[in-house]
């Protein structure tokens, strides 16, 4: 045990989106708050200024802003009977590191989940019958409803200055918005971003096919904005260096551009960067957290005592730290018992690359932002009848091409040589007239008994702690879902006049080297039953009531949207529960 620091009211582990939001809310309530962050402090002008923010090699290819696998990593296997090996270069997802967390390099696609997503098990069982679901699918209701989260979604959107077109304001459908979204209490704080040519064409083709396309809700500013904390953002310049990058000109919502400037002014808030929490400490009863142990940049170990512990690291690190701290029963897939590590999910992403006549189409793909795009939501969640299709789940799809950056934007038609003069010629011919939406089909991944996180029996980190081990593969349900959605997606490009299309279906086995999204979810899920969830509906740990665990680790399964809006709404929801309930009577908020 390291040297003991003075006690704080609250210690927050990880200063990304959820840590920043919770730190602000609890400091605002007058509590003495310290946040401990594994990575460095980051500021716009010193860490990603416009002078070199647009460096594709540095940030995209060499992963400047992400966790370095040499610092820590995970092991991975598809099946329970395989031996997992450490991931040594990020592929399928990009674990964040540093102040701001994934909020620095995210796309800022700011979605809400569907009302039915939060009661998924009940909803699907009622509509299709229990037998319609695969036997090993372990989906659950969340224990919280869309209506309960609505005010918290709203707070996050107004914090971020989300640019978008409302589809449903208090039950009234709005022209041009997403007609499937749950009712929102008010429109987005900012109008949608301007759409580039190709994105506009996609919207038109989708409309002609009878869909209701709408602009993707974006945390890239469509105009200057001052949020309720007084913090300002500038208008987006559509430079197309957002995803994997920090925004150099204060135009993308991030903790740095929305919360941290207000948070650091609070005298009762402090932060330690480059310090990694190695353990949440418990008292002798094992029912109460006494604080955390962390190691600073010099390798010194410290104990930070606190009355309340908030675990708000990246999803899988939340799970790992719970397992390493002996909090909650570890999940065992053989007996289907235990809670920590279960219902781990990712996303089911695919794409359609389409080629148009260069003499007729000039898309200028470099004019973009990370959350730009025209989408349709007809095939998300349970927005359509799954009965005839034999699968559940879905996703939004859209022309959401985020950039035309030079190193990676080289779509060439099938049959083109992989290198040499012919390849160069094809790149030149197609750069302006090809469409490559990237994560064009954004499908859900539901949870299964044999997809989970536990501690690796072999590999350890620099502190000799076992690495987290991921066991994950695609199941037939998701493969069917993806086939159906990708074909529907391609029909829209066909209607736009593409002369050639390449459907890049997602196929099994799950490939940890191919990028999908960074949306790792689950492993420390919320719910109503301590037998099948690690957290109650307020994200409070069932076993250790003075521990709250924030982030996508709480998702019982992943929906067909980007998770950050829901992650942040849950953080506000938990903060509200702490402020209005827990602080008045610290203890378990739910009697299960």
């Amino acid at each position, binding site marked *: 045990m390291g040297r003991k620091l003075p006690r704080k009211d609250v210690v927050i582990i990880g200063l990304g989106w959820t840590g920043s939001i919770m730190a602000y809310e609890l400091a605002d309530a007058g509590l003495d708050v310290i946040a401990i962050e594994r990575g460095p402090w980051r*500021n*716009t*002008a*010193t860490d990603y*200024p*416009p*002078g*070199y923010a647009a460096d594709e090699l*540095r940030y995209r290819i060499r992963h400047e802003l992400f966790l370095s696998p040499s610092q820590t990593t995970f092991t991975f296997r598809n099946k329970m009977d395989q031996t997992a090996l450490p991931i040594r270069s990020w592929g399928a997802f990009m674990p964040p590191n540093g102040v701001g967390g994934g909020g620095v390099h995210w796309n800022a696609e700011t979605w809400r989940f569907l009302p039915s997503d939060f009661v998924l098990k009940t909803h699907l069982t009622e509509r299709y019958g229990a037998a319609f679901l695969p036997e090993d699918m372990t989906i659950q209701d969340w224990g919280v409803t869309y209506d309960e989260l609505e005010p918290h979604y709203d707070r996050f959107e107004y914090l971020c200055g989300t640019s978008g077109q409302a589809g449903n304001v208090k039950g009234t459908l709005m022209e041009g918005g997403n007609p499937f979204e749950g009712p929102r209490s008010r429109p987005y704080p900012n109008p949608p971003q301007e759409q580039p040519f190709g994105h506009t064409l996609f919207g038109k083709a989708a409309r002609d096919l009878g869909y209701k396309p709408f602009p993707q809700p974006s945390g890239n500013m469509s105009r*200057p904005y*001052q949020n309720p*904390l*007084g*913090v*300002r*953002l*500038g*208008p987006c*310049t559509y*430079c197309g260096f957002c995803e994997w990058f920090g925004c*150099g*000109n*204060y135009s993308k919502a991030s903790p740095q551009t929305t919360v941290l*400037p*207000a948070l650091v*002014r609070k005298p009762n808030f402090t932060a330690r960067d480059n310090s990694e929490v190695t353990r949440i400490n418990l008292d002798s009863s094992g029912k109460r957290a006494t604080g955390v142990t962390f190691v600073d940049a010099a390798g010194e170990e410290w104990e930070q005592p606190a009355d309340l512990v908030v675990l708000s690291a990246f999803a899988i690190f939340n799970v790992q730290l719970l397992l390493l701290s002996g909090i909650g029963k570890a999940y065992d897939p053989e007996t289907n018992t235990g809670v920590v590590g279960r219902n781990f999910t990712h996303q089911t992403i695919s794409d359609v690359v389409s080629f148009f006549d260069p003499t007729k189409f000039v898309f200028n793909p470099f004019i973009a932002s990370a959350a730009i795009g025209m989408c349709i939501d007809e095939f998300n969640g349970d927005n359509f009848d799954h009965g005839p299709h034999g699968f559940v789940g879905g996703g939004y799809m859209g022309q959401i091409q985020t950039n035309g950056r030079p190193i990676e934007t080289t779509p060439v038609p099938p049959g083109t040589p992989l290198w040499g003069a012919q390849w160069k010629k094809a790149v030149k011919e197609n750069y302006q007239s090809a469409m490559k939406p990237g994560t064009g089909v954004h499908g859900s991944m539901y949870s299964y008994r044999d997809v989970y996180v536990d501690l690796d029996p072999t590999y350890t980190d620099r502190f000799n702690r076992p690495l987290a081990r991921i066991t994950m593969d695609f199941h037939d349900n998701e493969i069917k879902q993806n086939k159906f959605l990708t074909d529907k997606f391609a029909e829209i490009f066909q209607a736009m006049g593409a002369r050639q299309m390449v459907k890049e279906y997602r196929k099994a086995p799950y490939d940890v080297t191919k990028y999908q999204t960074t949306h790792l979810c689950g492993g420390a899920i919320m719910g109503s039953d301590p037998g099948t969830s690690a957290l109650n509906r307020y994200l409070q740990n069932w076993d250790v009531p003075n521990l709250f665990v924030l982030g996508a680790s709480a998702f019982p399964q992943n929906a067909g949207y980007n998770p950050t809006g829901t992650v942040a709404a849950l953080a506000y929801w938990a903060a509200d529960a702490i402020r209005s309930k827990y602080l008045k009577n610290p203890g378990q908020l739910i009697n299960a």
Partner: protein
Amino acid sequence: MQDFAAVERGRYLTSAADCGSCHTIPGSDHPFSGGRPIETPFGVLVAPNITPDRETGIGAWSDEEFDAAVRSGRRRDGKRLYPAMPFPYFARMTSEDVKDIRAYLSTIDPVRNPVTVNHLPFPLNQRMAMAVWDELYFTPGIFKDEPSKSKQWNRGAYLVQGPGHCGACHTPKTFLGGDESSKPLQGYTLQGWVAPDITSGQGPLAQWSRDAVAQYLKTGHNQFAAAAGLMGEVVELSTSRLTDDDVKAMATYLKDVSGPKPTADSSADAKVLTAGGAIYQDLCSACHKSDGTGVPNLIPDLTHAATVNTGDPTTVLRVILQGAQSVATDREPTGPAMPAFGWQLNDEQVSAVASYVRNHWGKAQREPTEASRSRHEVHQSEPEQDAKPK
């Protein structure tokens, strides 16, 4: 016995007079304990300890001795203070004002911190020389209302000319460091920053409304400019702590101070401006916009920022080379920063883009914009931003 109302008045005046800016080392947990070096054109002076410590602070001083130091520039031993202590301005305060400041300072934790003030070279280290200076530049006497002006104007004039001591930085100085009283607030360069010409009439603040000036003082930001460097400190420690009425009063008075139009820069070469314009569009326009107008309260409007439109390019060059962190205040907590470009642009390129910024939008300057001199000068001081590729 402490008079709470007097202490509160004193606390407010201590902010208005920005005592903490010199008498506290930035970031120190011991306010007013001195030790901060103050660069002057003649050498370095170190601000003394003004906590109530009896040995190393001012705890043993009588109120009369304190008043003599603040308003007459006289030390306890009768010797003269250097005018880095802006007593020629503080002389406009009443004895009651100064007594209240003393009352407030007496509530501060005493800190033992002996400070050697005088680091000037001979013969300037001889305080006798100050007798001549006082004769030339020091006019005693409290502020007198101008009866033809409004109450608000007079309050503003008192704050600007008295405790606020704005002219200490913003009024041009003679070779002896005294105010050029015929050119009030027409700009002066000190410690590597320009305290720009802040006159209206035809001066750089001509287009700023009274409310824009007040907003700048209160929040550090407005639609035109952002306070950084020394002015950032002034806003943080002084003007942001004043009431809305007082910053409006200061703005009312300042808007009534007229100055001439900054003169055109005949040396601005068309080729240089073309090169500067290309660099501007490449590196600057993402934030400051193609037309230089920026984003209100976030990114300065280069067509209206006083530091751009003042005669001396020092701040423009410094900020391009080194970057700048703007001030964060309760009303404007964002604190946006300008990144450094000194690692990326050579002297010629910095000069070109500075010339473009200072000439392109219709306001032009006397002096050619030389980056090499500035690069040398800013390297003497600590870098504002470390934005080199790591």
